[in-house]
């Protein structure tokens, strides 16, 4: 069947440098001395720790439970003893610490009791829960919880399910090797997604520089009797961006303002499909992942690595050359420099590149923009990067939004082509975070204003109530007095005098009453805010309260990170 391909505008073609790391099959990385498993490894809520120091854990045991619907569970990658639950340096450019479970492996690698499931016998909702509790998230780098992507839009029929094996970032080959070696399980996992989403077609997109992977996937599809279409797409960065691959395979352009199911399409990474199958059919939660170790090393190769393995232990497998000056996590286009050798391998780690001045020379000095338009031509989202740069530099953030800065996926194509060597992406990140922090400040100011107004209203209400009380008392007094005067003289002065305050301002009293009702409702709402501590033993509650307290100062930062990560357009090169 001839598949009509579409094309996306822009993009670049850097050297792919993929050859060194595909020579050897996937190796299994040895057990490190210590595993540092961060609790927060996906987009969404921070999982709640379920173990404490000294506990013995089994391989696959839940150590962090999903905190809400948009969150994902975390498990012990091997059996051993929990040494601590503490802040450890995160695999994040900031290098700020994050709450992590430190496990000392006992070397026995003893599994929990695994429960293989026949997902076809399960309610779809149950399948999604299993995936959430198995910690299945987008392994292309975006780590978006997969179960949350497995519902079709209400009003739109699901037309295409796109399975992303494009892997467009240079150097990276983890998906390539996974497809070569474990194609059957990827196809089976795609089958789960297909059954949950009920699309008309399933399209597996692979860049044409991976013929072996494409052949393996085709063979697996045939072997398993599926009707999935394996389609090779032209190699051009960022063809593996979810939106770009959807465009190439279906012709649909998903704007930043929409979620792809609203356009009848959804996209998952091949490694995600693989882990989904392992989770359902084998009862194995996500404990490890394939990571490419390449760059300035003697032995470039893909490894099956336990999550939580410190970078130090992992990179030792590749024997970095002496002039290595750092390690990048992710590809050279969208990755970042690891904050140190103590940072662990996490679910988002698809590739580690040893860098050197030879591989990635320091950038030439930044020159003024000459408006050559090369960046606009290279931008896959068809933005005008130099205009956004201009306004970001001038701190005119409103204008950057007019030029659609939030449609920028930070793919780096613009910086890649800029003859003036302007770090454009950096300016865009700066502008975005400034805009977010301003919005947060504004929200806080609004909240403060609302509180202030509420207090004013309460005071007014109290005043009105007091007046009412006084008036009633006066009226009662007057009424009591009334029979006393024997004469028929109308107590005009008295009655009008006391009635007046009550009748004079019924509107204010009403307003005050409404305000009071609203305030009560608010307090009620707050008191029933879902607490996941409900139904736990007192000891557990106390413990969690302690952890909450420890977490509190971090929460602000965590929210910042979350916003950064969940920002709607943010897609890592290979997406979920």
């Amino acid at each position, binding site marked *: 069947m001839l598949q009509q391909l579409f094309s996306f505008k822009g993009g670049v073609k850097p050297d792919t440098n993929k050859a060194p790391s595909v020579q050897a099959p996937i190796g299994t990385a040895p057990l490190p001395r210590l595993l540092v498993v961060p609790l927060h490894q996906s987009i969404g809520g921070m999982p709640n720790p379920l173990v404490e120091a000294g506990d013995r854990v089994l391989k696959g045991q839940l150590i962090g439970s999903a905190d809400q619907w948009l969150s994902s569970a975390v498990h012990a990658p091997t059996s051993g003893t929990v040494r601590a639950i503490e802040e450890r340096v995160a695999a994040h450019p900031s290098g700020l610490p994050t709450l992590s479970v430190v496990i000392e492996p006992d070397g026995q690698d003893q599994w929990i009791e695994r429960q293989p499931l026949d997902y076809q016998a399960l309610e779809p909702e149950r399948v999604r829960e299993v995936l959430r509790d198995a910690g299945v998230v987008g392994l292309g780098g975006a780590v978006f919880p997969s179960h949350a992507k497995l519902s079709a839009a209400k009003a739109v029929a699901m037309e295409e399910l796109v399975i992303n094996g494009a892997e467009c970032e240079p150097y990276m080959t983890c998906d390539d090797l996974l497809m070569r070696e474990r194609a059957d399980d990827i196809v089976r996992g795609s089958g789960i997604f297909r059954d949950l989403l009920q699309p008309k077609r399933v399209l597996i997109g692979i860049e044409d520089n991976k013929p072996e992977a494409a052949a393996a996937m085709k063979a697996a599809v045939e072997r398993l009797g599926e009707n999935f279409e394996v389609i090779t797409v032209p190699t051009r960065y960022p063809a593996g961006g979810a939106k770009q691959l959807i465009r190439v395979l279906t012709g649909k352009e*998903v704007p930043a303002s929409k979620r792809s199911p609203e356009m009848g399409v959804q996209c998952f990474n091949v490694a995600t499909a693989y882990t989904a199958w392992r989770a359902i059919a084998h009862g194995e939660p996500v404990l490890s992942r394939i990571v490419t170790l390449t760059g300035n090393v003697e032995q470039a190769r893909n490894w099956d690595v336990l999550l939580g393995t410190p970078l130090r232990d992992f990179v030792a497998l590749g024997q970095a050359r002496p002039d290595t000056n750092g390690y990048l996590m992710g590809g050279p286009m969208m990755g970042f420099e690891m904050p140190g050798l103590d940072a662990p391998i996490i679910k988002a780690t698809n590739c580690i590149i040893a860098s050197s001045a030879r591989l990635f020379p320091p*950038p030439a000095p930044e020159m003024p923009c000459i408006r050559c338009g090369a960046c606009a031509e290279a931008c896959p989202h068809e933005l005008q990067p130099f205009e956004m740069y201009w306004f970001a530099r001038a701190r005119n953030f409103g204008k950057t939004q007019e030029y659609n800065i939030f449609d920028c996926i930070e793919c780096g194509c613009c910086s890649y082509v800029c003859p003036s060597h302007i770090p454009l992406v950096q300016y865009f990140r700066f502008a975005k975070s400034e805009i977010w922090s301003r919005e947060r400040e504004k929200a806080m100011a609004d909240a403060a204003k609302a509180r202030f107004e509420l207090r004013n209203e309460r005071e007014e209400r109290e005043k009105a109530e007091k007046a009412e009380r006084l008036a009633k008392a006066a009226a009662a007094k007057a009424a009591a007095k009334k029979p006393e005067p024997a004469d028929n003289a109308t107590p005009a002065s008295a009655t009008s005098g006391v009635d007046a305050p009550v009748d004079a301002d019924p509107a204010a009293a009403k307003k005050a009453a409404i305000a009071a009702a609203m305030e009560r409702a608010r307090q009620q709402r707050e008191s029933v805010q879902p607490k996941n501590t409900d139904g736990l033993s007192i000891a557990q509650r106390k413990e969690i309260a302690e952890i909450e307290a420890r977490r509190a100062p971090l929460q602000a930062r965590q929210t910042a990170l979350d916003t950064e990560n969940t920002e709607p357009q943010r897609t890592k090169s290979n997406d979920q």
Partner: protein
Amino acid sequence: MNFTTPPYLIQDVSVQRIMLQVLAALLPGIAVYVWLLGPIVLLQIAIATIACVLAEAGMLKLLNKPLALFLGDGSAIVTAWLIALAFPPLSPWWLIVVGALFAIVVAKHLYGGLGQNPFNPAMIAFAVCIVSFPALMSQWPPVDLPGGFAEHLALVMGTAPRLDAMSGATPLDALKTALKLAEGTQAVPNILADARTFGHFAGRGWEWVGVAYLLGGLWLWQRRIISWHAPFAFLAGIGVLSGALWVVNPAGFASPIFHLFSGGAMLGAFFIVTDPVSGCTTPRGKLIFGFGAGALAYVIRVFGGYPDGVAFAVLLLNICVPLIDLYTQPPIFGMKNK
């Protein structure tokens, strides 16, 4: 650590490399020019280059900008060469220097330097000089220029009187003058039949300079240094207007071919309206910018008082750039149906 932000891979491009390729693309035109008029052309280029580079260095120093970095970008040299090629080849040296100073000091640095100038510096130089020294700026020597390099040098240095033999007119000007003298008794084809002045299709000798610029420009396009939009639209602007008038009244107007290969048309199309800094940035904007400049250049050159209209046309369109860009923003990914 010397890198902290992605992307860590950067394409091997630089402003300097772009400018060097623009200079290289000018070489065929310069070669034909030298073949027509002799080494005096190279001398003028050298004078312009020295003047521009010194002016650039002085301004950078004055403004406290990194000297080596900005001198190395080569943009001042491109401006210099364009000035030397746009000015009459036997201009006195000081005329070129005045043009160069205006271009670099006023048009470029007073507006903020590289990347900031709203007007094309070389065209500012041309406009200022033709307004201030109209006679000198209109003296174009015939291609069978009498005298050798020594005589030319004396003229440029101002040590010899300027002879009539040395100061002719461009084919464009010659046509205009002939038409005026003939007062309607002569048809354009008859005038152009004089191959001594008008060559095969657009002025003896000069037409080949135009062809050489065209080749250089096509090379730049093939190298993706320039996009086709602005040059194509510029030539279309000249071609459509001249074509329409020529079809209606072939006796009164020269053919599009004549106009496309005369004067500053080819230099303007590939080296002036393609200036990224002072031109439009959106594809549709480039088309409007180019077409407007071409049409205006034609109107000025045929109906106006100056021998050629490219400089004024480009400067006028430069003013409109922000507006054109604003109204030609292309729709972004996912928003094409709105």
